[in-house]
C-alpha cells in the first residue's frame, strides 16, 4: 500500500508517521540495549503494532483517560506520556514514572491522564470502566480508553466489564489489539474456531468496529469516529484491530525459531508494515516531504538518545524507598 499522499492529508500523514516512528524507535532501542542487563524487568514490546496507538494519539484529548496492559509502552507514549520517565522507570531509577517501583509493566503519567497499566491480564479493564463511571458522575465529556489484547478477552473480568459499561451506558472505548497470540498460544487453543471477538462484544451489548491495523488511514478514521461517538454520550464502544507482534512475547529478541509461529507468517505481516509503507509513501510524494520525514526521524532519534541518557544517568532510588508508600498517608478532604 505504498502510494503518493494527497496534499490535504500531508500534515496528518506526517503526524501518523511521527507517532509510529517514535514508538518503533523507542521499542527498538530497548531491544538493542536490553541484553546489557541494565533494564532489569520484563519488557513487552509493541514493535509491529504501532499503527493503533498512532491512530489513538491523533484522536484523543489530553484529559481523556487511558489504561493499558503489560504491553503498554506504546499506549503510554501515544497518550502523551513522558518518554524520559518511562525509560527511567524501565531502568529502575528514582526519576521513573513510578519511582522505580513498578517497572515496564506499571506505567503512569497523571499529567496526561494515563492512569496505569497492569501486569495481570485483564486487570486494568474494569479500572478503565470505573474511570468512565467517574466521568459520568462528574458530568464531564471525558472518555475512558482501555487497551487490551486478544488474550485478555478470555478473562471473565473483561466480559463483566463490558456488561457493566453497557448497563450504565458509560463513556468507555475498548481498544483490542488482536495480535493472534497470547504468549506463544495461538487463538485456536483459546477461543472458538471462527468466533469473532467484535461480533461477540456486539451481542453482549456494546457497539463495535473492526479494522485491519495495517491500514493506518482506516484505523485512524475508525478510531476518531469511535472516540467522537463515545464522547457524544451514547455509551461504550469496542474496537478490534488486527495486528502482529514482531518480537518475542517478553524480552528483546525475535523468536520465530521457537516454532510456535512460522517465519512465513511473520514475513507476511512484516511486508505489510504500515510504518515502512507510510515512510515510503511520504518519500515518494516529494523531496520536500522526504526532508520533513528525515527531520522527524532525526528529532525522534535524538529525543530517544537523550531519554536513555537521562535514564542511565538518573539516580537509583534509596533503599529506604522500598518501604514507603505502602499506605497513602494524607487524610482525604472531607
Amino acid at each position, binding site marked *: 500500500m505504498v502510494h503518493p499522499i494527497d496534499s490535504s492529508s500531508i500534515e496528518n500523514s506526517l503526524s501518523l508517521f511521527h507517532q509510529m516512528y517514535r514508538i518503533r524507535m523507542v521499542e527498538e532501542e530497548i531491544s538493542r540495549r536490553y541484553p546489557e542487563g541494565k533494564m532489569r524487568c520484563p519488557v513487552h514490546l509493541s514493535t509491529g503494532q504501532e499503527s493503533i496507538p498512532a491512530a489513538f494519539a491523533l484522536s484523543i484529548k489530553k484529559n481523556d483517560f487511558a489504561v493499558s496492559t503489560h504491553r503498554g509502552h506504546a499506549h503510554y507514549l501515544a497518550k502523551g506520556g513522558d518518554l524520559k520517565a518511562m525509560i527511567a522507570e524501565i531502568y529502575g531509577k528514582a526519576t521513573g514514572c513510578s519511582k522505580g517501583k513498578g517497572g515496564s509493566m506499571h506505567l*503512569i503519567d*497523571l499529567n496526561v491522564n494515563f*492512569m496505569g497499566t497492569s501486569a495481570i491480564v485483564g*486487570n486494568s479493564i474494569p*479500572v478503565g470502566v470505573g474511570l468512565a463511571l467517574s466521568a459520568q458522575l462528574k458530568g464531564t465529556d471525558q472518555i475512558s480508553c482501555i487497551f487490551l489484547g486478544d488474550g485478555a478477552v478470555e478473562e471473565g473480568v473483561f466480559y463483566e*466489564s463490558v456488561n457493566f459499561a453497557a448497563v450504565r451506558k458509560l463513556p468507555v472505548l475498548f481498544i483490542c489489539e488482536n495480535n493472534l497470540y497470547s504468549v506463544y498460544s495461538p487463538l485456536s487453543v483459546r477461543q472458538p474456531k471462527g468466533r469473532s471477538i467484535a461480533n461477540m462484544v456486539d451481542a453482549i451489548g456494546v457497539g463495535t468496529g473492526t479494522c485491519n491495523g495495517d491500514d493506518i488511514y482506516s484505523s485512524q478514521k475508525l478510531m476518531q469516529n469511535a472516540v467522537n461517538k463515545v464522547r457524544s454520550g451514547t455509551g461504550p464502544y469496542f474496537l478490534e484491530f488486527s495486528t502482529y507482534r514482531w518480537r518475542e512475547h517478553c524480552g528483546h529478541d525475535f523468536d520465530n525459531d521457537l516454532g510456535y509461529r512460522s517465519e512465513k507468517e511473520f514475513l507476511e505481516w512484516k511486508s505489510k508494515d504500515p510504518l515502512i509503507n507510510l515512510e515510503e509513501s511520504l518519500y515518494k510524494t516529494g523531496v520536500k516531504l522526504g526532508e520533513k520525514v528525515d527531520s522527524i526521524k532525526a528529532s525522534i532519534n535524538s529525543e530517544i538518545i537523550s531519554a536513555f541518557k537521562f535514564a542511565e544517568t538518573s539516580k537509583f532510588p534509596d533503599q529506604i524507598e522500598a518501604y514507603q508508600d505502602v499506605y*497513602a498517608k494524607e487524610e*482525604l478532604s*472531607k
Partner: protein
Amino acid sequence: MTKKTFSTAINDALHEAMRIDQSVICYGLGVTDPKAVFNTTSNLEKKFGSERVFDMPTSENAMTGVAIGAALNGIKSVITHQRIDFFLLAMDQIVNGAAKWHYMYGGQSSIPITIRLIIGRGWGQGPTHSQNLQAWFAHIPGLKVVMPTSPEDAKGMLLSSIFDPNPVIFLEHRWLHDTLGDVPSGDIRVPLGKAKIVKAGTDITLVTMSYMTVEAVHAANYLEEKGIVCEVIDLRTIKPLDWKTIMDSVAKTGRLLALDSGFTTGSVSGEVVARVAMEKFSILKSAPTRLAMPDVPEPTSLALTKGFYVRASNIAEKVMDMFGKNTSDIKKDLPEPSPHDVPGEWFKGPF
C-alpha cells in the same frame, strides 16, 4: 442518646458520608432493593439519587475494579456484599490491584474504597456463607481491615474508612446487626488503628474482635465473679493492628488469651500470640494461648453447629484452666443458648 442498632448505625454513617461528600457513592447487590442489605442502605437511593446509589450485576470482580478506576478520579466507593464469601471472586482486583496501586505507582494515586463484607453464621449458613477471612486481608500489605463490635464503632469507623485514602475491608458480623448501643449523631469518627479496652482488668488480657467480643465480655463478667479480672481488648482494626495497647496490657497482666472468629491455623489470633511471645516472652507468667474456630468448614445442620462456635463458656474454661482453677461448673453456669444457631429470639431465618 437513643439506642440504635448496629445496622442503623451503618445506615447513619452512609447517609452522613454521602451528605458531606458528593464524591461518595454506594453500590452493591441489593443496595437499592426493599430489604436494603439488612436495612443498612435504607433510603440512600431516595436521598442521593440513582447515580450515586445503585444495584449492580452479579460481577464481584469487575465491580471491585470499577471502584479502583473511579477512585483514581477521586470517587470514594462503598461497595457492599451480603456475604464475605462472594468477595472471593474479587481477590485479583483487591490484592493485585487496590492494595498495591498506591505503592506500585510510587505513591501518586490512592484508592479510597471501602468494601463492606458481611460475615454469616448459623441458621444453616453452611460452608460458603460463614467464612471469617480477616487473616487473609491482614496478610496483604496496603489493605486496612476493620471489624467493629459496637454500633458506635460501626458508625465512627465506617466514616473513618470511607474517608481513609486506602482500600479498607470493613467486616460486619451478621450477629451484630441487631445489637443496640448509643450512637452519637452527626459526623463522628472513630480512628482506625486504635484498639479499645472494653473492660479493664489486671489478671489476663483477652484480645478479641467483632462478635467474639460479645462472648469475651460475657465470659469476663463471669470470671470476675470467680475472682479473675480480665482485661478485654476489642481490636476493632485488624490492620494496622494496635500492638501498643496489647503489649501494654500484657505487660500488666502477664497473660494472654487471643480470640478469633476465623479458622485456627493462620488466624489473626495466632499472629497476636506470636508477637506477644516474641516481644513479651520474659514477662509472660504462663504460655500465651488462643481460641478460634476449628480448622473445619462450618457445617449446615443445627446439630452439627452445636458446640461448634467459641462461646463464653469455652473462653471461661480456658482462662480458669490457665489459672489452674476447677472448670467443672462452667458448662452449667454458661450454657450454650438454645437455639444456638441464631443471634437472638427475633431471628427467624433464613438469612
